[in-house]
């Protein structure tokens, strides 16, 4: 019985350490996070609570009601540079962030 308790406690401790390590990696920049993740086996996604950890780590500081950070970026055709402020005339703006991959 004592041995069983030791095994259970060890598993719980290891699981906690793994979750903490995963969270710490998720707080890194996307580049660093990706460099670690490319070595992580798929089973980690089944074993670890990836989604809640991800939501926590990638929550970001920006809150609803905050001024949207301005930007000045190239258009896709590279013909001009546009600013966020120039998007907003009299209507709200939906920003869809993403990439092909």
């Amino acid at each position, binding site marked *: 019985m004592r041995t069983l308790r030791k095994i259970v406690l060890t598993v719980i401790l290891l699981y906690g350490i793994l979750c903490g390590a995963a969270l710490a990696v998720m707080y890194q920049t996307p*580049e660093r996070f990706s460099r670690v993740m490319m070595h992580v086996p798929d089973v980690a996604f089944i074993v670890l609570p990836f989604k809640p950890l991800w939501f926590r780590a990638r929550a*970001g500081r920006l*809150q609803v009601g905050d001024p949207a950070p301005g*930007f000045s970026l190239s258009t896709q055709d590279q013909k001009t540079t546009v600013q966020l402020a120039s998007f907003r005339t009299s209507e709200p703006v*939906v920003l869809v962030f993403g*990439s092909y991959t």
Partner: protein
Amino acid sequence: MAFYVVYIEEAHPIDAWQDDDNIKAGISLHSTRTLSERCSVAGTCLTRLGIAFPAVVDDLANSTERAYTAWPDRLYVIDRDGRVAYKSKPGPYGFKPEQVSQTLGRLFPKTRATMAPATSMQAEAVAAPAIR
């Protein structure tokens, strides 16, 4: 209502964290190293996914991604005063176009869409928001 794509750094380039779904879909891209390269890839993405609304491309320092914690994908609604009206949870799990639709309907009931989104950036979020 206006929709804009902000094309950011790749989520799963082949030189970093390649994704099986991309391999199956025949999408194989390196991390982009120049702005021209990133713009070119963005153009391919918009064409192939049939995205009809305009796009801007984040700089190589990924400054807009950092400001919005947007990687790998995320949705925002900015109101007329330039404030954040809606912020999705981080993608891919939090990328839910239907929440944008609900937010727009609640916050801006009289606003009409000027451009309907043709598709979302990710296969797991293909349900485009029904803006009316």
